[in-house]
């Protein structure tokens, strides 16, 4: 079983739709969870991060973490064509858990297209 599973898509939605992107993971030591957005031929840029379980909102983006289910989500409201990109989830554990948060474990990314 891979440490992080992410549906690669592609996912195609009309402009204005609510988008739900998800990752599951197997390592219960993961404490920090991130979402990156990557436009074609560019480096990933950090969108959001959360610590442990809970929700975090930033504008049209909401990140959710459910540690009991080992499941994280990113919701995009009122999606725009400019949101078309690959979305990568990433996570790390902490030195306190015996791990090292030097390293992030990434999902393979979901390709999203928002059609005007």
């Amino acid at each position, binding site marked *: 079983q891979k440490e992080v599973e992410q549906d690669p898509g592609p996912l195609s939605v009309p402009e204005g739709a609510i988008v739900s992107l998800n990752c599951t993971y197997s390592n219960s030591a993961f404490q920090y969870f991130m979402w*990156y957005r990557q436009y074609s031929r560019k480096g990933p*840029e950090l969108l959001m991060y959360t610590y442990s379980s809970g929700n975090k909102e930033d504008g049209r983006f909401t990140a959710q973490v459910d540690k009991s289910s080992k499941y994280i989500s990113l919701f995009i409201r009122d999606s725009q064509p400019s949101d078309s990109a690959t979305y990568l989830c990433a996570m790390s554990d902490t030195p306190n858990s015996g791990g*090292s*948060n*030097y390293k992030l474990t990434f*999902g393979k990314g979901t390709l999203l297209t928002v059609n005007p």
Partner: protein
Amino acid sequence: SQTIHQWPATLVQPVGSPLSLECTVEGTSNPNLYWYRQAAGRGLQLLFYSVGIGQISSEVPQNLSASRPQDRQFILSSKKLLLSDSGFYLCAWSVPSGSRQYTEAFFGQGTRLTVV
């Protein structure tokens, strides 16, 4: 503010030729530095990370090596490229984990390497 520079953006090299990719970070001291490779359908693979000058950790055995001659400079090298070395190479940095619990990574714009 911190910035990360990575060059070249695109590179086409023949099999058996050497490789040198350079990455520099500005606006921060003693960052953790990373080299990732992103291949289609395989997600982001961590190749090397460094927590200080001259300190390199390798994540996977391969035809590549890394060096950190200065605090904010990270170099990815190969003596003889293989076809399988083709991919999108990304440099990233994060703040040292000792200064905070959480360490998100920030990426450069990547180098697309094609070995022919």
